[in-house]
């Protein structure tokens, strides 16, 4: 209301003040507070080993979260990411067992994941189904595909060459490659999302598809390629997992999509599209990971863990909603 009468001034908000108001700052504060409490509660929490294990544990999922966040920004959602991660893993794994060089097999696994993204994108943009239903179907179909490829049994890949295993298990000057890959993906897409014109179109499309269309943006193309990007990153995560575990299990990644979506939403991505940041989403998955780790260290039964995570999701989203509501009025 008062904005009407507001004077046309351009106040330069200092950078530190802007950070203070960002959602990311809140998440960092919560993570730090939880860490502080945990460091008193458990002597094992604040150890180098535990920190590294936590970082490792969410690094690979983090790659998937990046894709999911961009897809949420465009107004879509992908329930099939868990299945696609597994698909890339078992496809590359079985190709390797069939005698294909592991690097080539991995590339095929990733490209096949992109193909799944293209098929989903086709149904969303050409047929005109929504992302939810399309990816729900894909989730089940691709999971079935995983079982078909492996005939339902886990593939043992201990014969993978050391050079390939290094991706998931090795370190570079003490830093695991997994973490390096994760950080590279995060920095790359965070930068692109902020600066690249192509990714700005993702925001326009997600914020108001009709207005974007009227502005000459090919919204269907945008949605198609973001869907492909999300599946491709899931594929990348799949082969990294394969290298890390030296195995490919056809049931791997069941339920992963919920964790991924929860992380992106905790980090500020809107299910209505138009908003979300990579940094926020990464903090979201970090928070979930810290909570999981804490629960394990505190000897909380695994049966309780999902429930507690669900409550955290609900609390985080409610707090955000209430804060926004007050600002909006």
């Amino acid at each position, binding site marked *: 209301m008062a904005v009407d009468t507001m004077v*046309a001034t351009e106040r330069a908000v200092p950078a530190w003040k802007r950070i203070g108001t960002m959602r990311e700052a809140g998440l960092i504060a919560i993570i730090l507070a939880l860490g502080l409490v945990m460091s008193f509660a458990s002597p094992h929490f604040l150890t180098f080993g535990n920190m590294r294990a936590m970082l490792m544990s969410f690094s690979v999922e983090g790659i998937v979260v990046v894709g999911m966040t961009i897809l949420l920004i465009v107004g879509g959602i992908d329930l099939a990411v868990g299945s696609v991660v597994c698909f890339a893993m078992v496809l590359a794994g079985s190709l390797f067992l069939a005698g294909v060089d592991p690097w080539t097999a991995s590339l095929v696994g990733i490209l096949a994941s992109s193909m799944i993204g293209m098929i989903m994108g086709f149904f969303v943009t050409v047929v005109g189904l929504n992302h939810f239903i399309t990816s729900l179907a894909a989730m089940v179909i691709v999971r079935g595909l995983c079982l078909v490829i492996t005939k339902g049994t886990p593939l043992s890949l201990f014969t993978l060459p050391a050079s390939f295993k290094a991706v998931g298990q090795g370190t570079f000057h003490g830093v695991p490659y997994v973490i390096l890959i994760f950080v590279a993906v995060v920095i790359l897409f965070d930068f692109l999302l902020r600066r690249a014109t192509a990714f700005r179109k993702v925001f326009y499309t997600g914020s108001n598809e009709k207005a974007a269309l009227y502005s000459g943006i090919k919204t269907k193309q945008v949605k198609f390629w973001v869907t492909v990007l999300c599946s491709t990153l899931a594929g990348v995560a799949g082969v990294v997992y394969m290298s890390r575990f030296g195995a490919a299990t056809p049931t791997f990644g069941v339920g992963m999509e919920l964790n991924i979506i929860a992380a992106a939403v905790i980090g500020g991505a809107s299910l209505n599209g138009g908003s979300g940041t990579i940094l926020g989403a990464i903090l979201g998955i970090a928070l979930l990971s810290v909570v999981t780790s804490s629960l394990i260290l505190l000897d909380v039964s695994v049966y309780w863990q999902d429930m507690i995570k669900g409550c955290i999701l609900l609390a985080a989203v409610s707090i955000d909603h209430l804060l926004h509501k007050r600002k909006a009025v």
Partner: protein
Amino acid sequence: MTAQPVLEVRRVTKHFGAVKALTEVNFQLERGEIHALCGENGAGKSTLMNIIAGVLQPNEGEILVDGAPVKIGSPAIAQTLGIGLVHQEIALCPDATVAENMFMAATNRRRSPLMNYGALEREAQGVMNRLAPIDVRRKVADLGISSQQLVEIAKALTLDCRVLILDEPTAALTEAEAQALFGIVRDLKAAGISIIYISHRMAEIFSLCDRVTVFRDGRHVVTEKIADVTPDDVVRRMVGREISQLYPPKQAPEARSGEPILSVRNLSDGDRIDSVSFDLKRGEILGIGGLIGSGRTEIAEAICGLRAKSTGEVALRGKPQRIANYRDAVNAGIVYLSEDRKGSGVFIDLSIAQNISVLDLKTLTGPLGLLNSRAEADLAREFVRRLGVRMGGIDMPVSSLSGGNQQKVAIAKQLAVRPQVILMDEPTRGIDVGAKSEIHRLLRELAETGIGIVVISSELPELLGLCDRVLVIREGTIAGALDDTEMSEEAVIRLASGVTPTDRIAAGRAANVA
């Protein structure tokens, strides 16, 4: 003031955080009167109405119904008190039928567990027939905006209310529909129902209402009998300053060059529009009038590639253009501003800067496909200054702006690509008087710099006051063209509705060909 007011508001104050929306407002509604409520957007009218209808709660003050203090804690309580509100924003269930929507509130109050659809549809049709011939079995999503607005009004008529609040009911209606509505409002008044009528249109207020109350900046300014004031008085009190002239001066006769910027020939889409031909001349503002649904919007959409055309040519300064999609139109220099500002005009939750740059991404993009954010900010600042957008900063979301300023951002977005022709559909719908005349002035300035402006409008005063020439569309064809000397409300209505003496149409056709 002998009778007890049916509704009285005493010293009501409402603030949202630090922002005071209403300050000690007093308001009285007599039985059976039509009471106009005026004020610029942000003056607090809608806030007060939402308080009366139970949507918002006041911080201080009291509300009396029939002299007894009441607490209106929710819209359901307002309904039981007999207070009905027709929102300015359309709030219907798009997937339900018109009948179901109309009786949503009534169904809620009825205690019967089963729906009687037969009776529902009969009753609904009965109410609807008084307003417009809309089949109540149709889904709301299939109706146009003006019909949806009528459903919203019909919905309120189904409640037995003693106080009916109409918040800009005619904003999306055509002249004929508005006239039908006025008839009903007068009937309701005759039946003893008290009506609060919020509108920006002085002509309506002065033909319909008994008293007028003016709000400014959340305060009550004055309440007067309509008979004792003039439209100028009301407008002056609303804005708190003199508006010497509501509309900018028209194009001087000697400035008329005759050189066409945009030429449209035989434009048809095989469906809604048929053989439309006209020229837009340099420096002029060309108005397009006609009933809603007559094909006005479709003509604009066909010109700029948003609608497939079956025949027709579009030329810019004599050069024929191939326009297959909207991207082609923008590249050629033709931009379109949609009538549905929130639906397809602006990106409401993105920043002002991001909104302004959307059409111009290509020039803002560097060699690596990266956006030059400094150039983007400069662009935004330049247009915000030129258009006088009142805002907190170019990084603020568009949702933080008032309607008038949102519209300026939408216009800035179009101007950023330096267009030769701007097609504007309802450029000032739902915008307050002050912002409206700023936008009109802006359009005139743009026209003077040589940009061709086409304004599609349902508001006759806007067509007549702003435009140098008006095309009237009926059933997808140009029913006539009126130049400055021929323009009158009557002439436009006659052409638009087809109740024209035949010679008048002929004259219009001749003018159009010339």
